[in-house]
């Protein structure tokens, strides 16, 4: 383990930014944290997490897949892919780091999504351990330890220093480049922080939330639950929960007529929308009840069923703070299966 004094943090960021674009959470004018590319004068936010998740770096909301150009009777197909440059995402929390595993399972399974794979190959993730988890956090429900995140390099920020440990080859390479600015150290401070964070985690209001009753093979148990109707009755059908979610991975492909050709775009889609998975006859999920059910069943039952029991939620709590009507996965988990709180 190596450490870097907080007073030297700017120098550390400058060094990282020399070789690759460095992104980190900074405080916006609206008092909330957003990822921004580091430049001289930008400071790391103290906020627990960003409004939008870090999935944007690997699976952006919109991307240009290819283009077609019409020239008389010929159509030229243009590959719009550019080999991505290396980039570093700093300050990713444990929940968001886990979300990459969930996205990987989807996008890197054969046939792998080359656009996503390309970004994963070029991105280095530097995670940051949590010290003050919020009341909306429930990552421990899904076995995530907020005090010890995964990532290429793991960081712990104390009052005076940033402790860093490389976990992968990419991480080791980066740490080697930062050797001049960091010094070898013992793990006492980190261990103390981890212990405190764990204590705090155990005292969170949602610490007792469990997903035990969900998982693969439970489709029939929950599919016809009458609670879906009451849970979804106030749902507006907007896409807020899906778009701030670090694990939602559904997308739509749209052809945009530019007047002189076609641009093919991939963009996030939301199962809450009336035109999601639209087919010749329309949307197979006729009302908001079914659309709402799809979102939560996907996270709690379908995804684990198809992926060895791993849940499709990481407990980051974004949907808890952002939903316009304050409906969210925690309320769903507590109210399904007849044992309402």
């Amino acid at each position: 383990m190596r450490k870097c004094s907080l007073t030297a943090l700017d120098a550390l960021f400058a060094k990282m930014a020399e070789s690759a674009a460095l992104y980190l959470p900074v405080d916006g004018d609206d008092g909330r944290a957003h990822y921004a590319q580091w430049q001289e004068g930008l400071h790391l936010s103290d906020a627990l997490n960003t409004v939008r998740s870090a999935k944007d770096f690997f699976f952006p909301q919109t991307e240009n897949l290819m283009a077609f150009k019409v020239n008389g009777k010929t159509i030229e197909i243009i590959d719009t892919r550019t080999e991505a440059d290396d980039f570093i995402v700093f300050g990713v929390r444990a929940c968001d780091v886990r979300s990459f595993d969930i996205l990987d399972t989807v996008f890197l399974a054969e046939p792998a999504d080359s656009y996503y794979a390309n970004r994963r190959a070029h991105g280095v993730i530097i995670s940051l351990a949590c010290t003050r988890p919020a009341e909306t956090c429930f990552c421990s429900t899904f076995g995530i330890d907020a005090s010890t995140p995964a990532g290429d390099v793991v960081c712990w920020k104390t009052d005076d220093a940033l402790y860093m440990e490389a976990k992968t080859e990419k991480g080791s390479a980066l740490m080697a480049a930062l050797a001049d600015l960091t010094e070898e150290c013992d793990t006492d401070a980190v261990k103390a922080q981890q212990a405190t964070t764990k204590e705090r985690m155990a005292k969170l209001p949602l610490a007792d939330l469990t997903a035990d009753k969900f998982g693969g093979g439970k489709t029939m148990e929950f599919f016809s639950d009458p609670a879906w109707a009451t849970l979804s009755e106030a749902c507006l059908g907007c896409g807020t929960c899906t778009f701030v979610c670090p694990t939602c991975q559904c997308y739509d492909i749209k052809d945009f007529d530019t007047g002189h050709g076609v641009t093919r775009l991939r963009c996030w889609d939301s199962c809450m929308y009336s035109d999601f998975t639209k087919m010749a006859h329309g949307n197979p999920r006729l009302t908001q009840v079914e659309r709402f059910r799809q979102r939560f069943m996907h996270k709690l039952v379908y995804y684990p069923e198809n992926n060895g029991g791993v849940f499709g939620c990481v407990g980051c709590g974004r949907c808890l703070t952002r939903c316009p009507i304050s409906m969210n996965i925690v309320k769903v988990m507590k109210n399904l299966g007849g044992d309402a709180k």
Partner: protein
Amino acid sequence: MQVTEYKPKIVAFCCNWCSYAGADLAGNNRLNYPDNIKIIRVPCSCRVNPMFILRAFQRGADGVILCGCHPGDCHYTSGNYYTRRRMALLFSMLSYLGIEKERTRVEWVSAAEGAKFAATMNEFSAQVAALGENKRLEDLRCKP
């Protein structure tokens, strides 16, 4: 060295009953107006909804002008009165968003006013040309 003069692209929505006939008259009278004005005939100026104006900009227009019958002369009695309110609010909103107000215009041109049509188009074209290309309300994908 040949220097090509910048010519703005201008879309003119013209009411079938007045302004479109006004454009016709301008032609019959051999009055010049710029060839970069692309006329789209509409049954009434009231047919033009705000989306038409925005879409014209998206597709590469540098200026959009809407011509209809003089207030009181609408073929359908009152269509242009609605147009007047609609466009007053839309143009004010565009200006509020920081889009140059000189790029949009409403002009009342009757079927007998060929000269006014030509003069308006010459003036509007020069006004938009002075602003240069539309950058604030453009869709990059639609650029050649």
